């Protein structure tokens, strides 16, 4: 038995090793960084979950949504309201928020079937713009402009003692939320990976690449398109719920249009229709504006007025430039660039690749 595990590990393709390394990195990371940084990385992971949802919808099923921030708001408010009004444990509300948002997404997917990609983009964009003012209105339920405070849970005794046994310090609630988020992200990424490799994923890609041909092959177009919407909304709902937990409150201004744009930017930077894409994209989309607005004020030779405007305008400008340049020069995103780089490296190492078609000679190990 042990031998077969070893054997399997030895012969596993390199990407499994990569996945293992990434998981170990994310498990160990909060033990070496501050609690505040852990909270920032939690938000990046939350974005990764939402972007994975968007990626399933946009990348795999080819339907454009610019309103995923609104779905995140729905998930966040569902959790916050349940916790606030019924004193339920927050963890219980995460799947509830996901399922409710998924259900709404399914309902939204039905009229969306009739719309072309362009109209769908337009309607969801309008939804994202209107969301903050829609949230403010039922003030009794949503707390109006102030929003709702979300109490941060203390880590349970078991997790806390396990953590202090490893690191020697007590676990903060930020670190506990990090691990909750990491757990959700791992499960959801694993689900997404399985989804896209099997029948539904193939069906979605077939619909994306040619709806008429897909229908002719007997694929249930309406079914898979609404399914993609529902799954995508489920991811957004879970992400929204975790988002509220991470930042400790939900308010209308937590979910501006900019959030929906940030999700789209992340999906595009990482690479649409790929599984590692959303993770890479989320890290970039989250840290790019933070770093770009922190770097400039630290430059003391710049006058104050310039630094303050750059601080405000920096994220928008850098997002815009990155989006346009990526779409023109690398529409497959970071993952596409990395894959191309890896293939080029392989070709260089193995030599005799066919330069015309780019076909590699067979891997000696598999022959």
């Amino acid at each position, binding site marked *: 038995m042990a031998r077969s595990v070893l054997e399997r590990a030895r012969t596993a393709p390199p990407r499994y090793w990569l996945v293992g390394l990434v998981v170990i990195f994310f498990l160990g990371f909060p033990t070496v960084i501050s609690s505040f940084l852990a909270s920032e990385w939690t938000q990046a992971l939350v974005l990764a979950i939402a972007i994975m949802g968007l990626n399933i919808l946009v990348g795999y099923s080819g339907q454009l949504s610019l309103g995923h921030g609104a779905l995140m708001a729905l998930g966040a408010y569902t959790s916050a309201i349940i916790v606030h009004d019924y004193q339920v444990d927050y963890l219980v509300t995460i799947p509830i928020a996901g399922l409710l948002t998924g259900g709404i997404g399914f309902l939204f997917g039905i009229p969306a079937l*009739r719309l072309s990609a362009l109209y769908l*983009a337009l309607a969801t964009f309008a939804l994202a713009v209107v969301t903050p003012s829609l949230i403010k209105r039922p003030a009794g339920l949503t707390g109006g402009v102030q929003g709702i405070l979300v109490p941060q849970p203390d880590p349970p005794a078991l997790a806390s003692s396990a953590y202090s046994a490893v690191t020697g310090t007590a676990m903060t609630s930020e670190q506990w939320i990090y691990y909750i988020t990491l757990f959700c992200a791992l499960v959801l990424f694993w689900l997404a990976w399985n989804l896209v490799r099997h029948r539904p994923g193939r069906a979605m890609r077939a619909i994306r690449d040619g709806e008429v041909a897909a229908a002719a092959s007997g694929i249930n177009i309406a079914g898979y398109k609404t399914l993609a919407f529902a799954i995508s909304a489920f991811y957004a709902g879970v992400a929204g719920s975790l988002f509220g937990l991470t930042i400790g409150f939900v308010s209308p201004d937590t979910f501006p249009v900019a959030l929906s744009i940030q999700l789209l930017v992340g999906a595009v930077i990482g690479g649409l229709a790929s599984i590692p894409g959303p993770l890479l994209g989320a890290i970039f989309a989250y840290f790019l504006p933070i770093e770009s607005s922190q770097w400039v004020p630290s430059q003391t030779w710049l006058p104050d007025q310039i630094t303050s405007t750059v601080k405000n305008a920096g994220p*928008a400008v850098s*997002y815009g430039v990155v989006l346009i340049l990526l779409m023109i020069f690398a529409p497959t995103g970071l993952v596409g660039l990395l894959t191309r780089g890896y293939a080029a490296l392989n070709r260089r190492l193995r030599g005799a690749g066919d330069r015309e078609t780019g076909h590699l000679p067979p891997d000696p190990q598999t022959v």
Partner: protein
Amino acid sequence: MQELFQLLVSGIATGGIFASLALALVLIYNAMGLVNFAQGEMAMFATFIAYALIQRGMSYWIAFPVTLVLAFAGGILVQRVVIRPVERAPILTLVIITLGLATLVNGLAGFLFGYVPRSFPSPFSAQTVDLLGVFISYRDLGVIAVSGVVLLVLYLLLQRTTVGLTLRAAAFHPEASRLLGVQVSWMLALGWGLASAVGAVSGIMVAPILLLEPNMMQTIIIYAFAAAVLGGIESPLGAVVGGLIVGVTINLAGAYIPHVGGDLQLAVGLAIIILALLLKPNGLFGRAAVRRV
């Protein structure tokens, strides 16, 4: 009753503003089958240019056409630099590019002009005139007049000149136009320039009402979407009629439907978009979409 008429007139005035922006959207849609999400931000940027010109001491009625010319040039520049490399890309790519453009222009405006709201001068006085018992502000009348003139000029340009004919031909049948010697790509650029100029009119008209700041057009573009969708996104006439309907509707809804008020007017815009898409996806004046299998 008197109140209703006053609301109607101010609704038509705001409707004229929406119609200009919706018309800009329609121009680009007709040229390349794309909704330009950056149209509102481009209009906002042009309005900032007009503001800067007026601040430098230029008179309003000189700054206005100068801004339109600059906006026209800016539209062509944007098309040449940003859109041309991806002219044949799938619609998803194009939409994402225009969104990136919107974010970029918004950030640039914030960078160059700051986020402090500024009051924008209006050439029309805020006084009202008594028209058959209905009090109408000169400002509303002025907005209606300017929008009307711009729409008329655009109509004449597209329908009565050779350039307009070429432009429409290039949009309608690019291959055949190319065979007849039309430079289709430059015609697209011309379309972007025109759209940018028409959009700038809406920005300059709305700025005295809303205060000028980088996010000024974020709500207006939603109403323009509603107008374009309602009218049929490929029909210029539809954009104008749609704009007027949307303007009047949100004005009346804000006043008469309980609980709507000022902040939920935007939700009325969203409702118009969704209802129009569900009930009449081709809009009031659009042709039924024919798909080739």
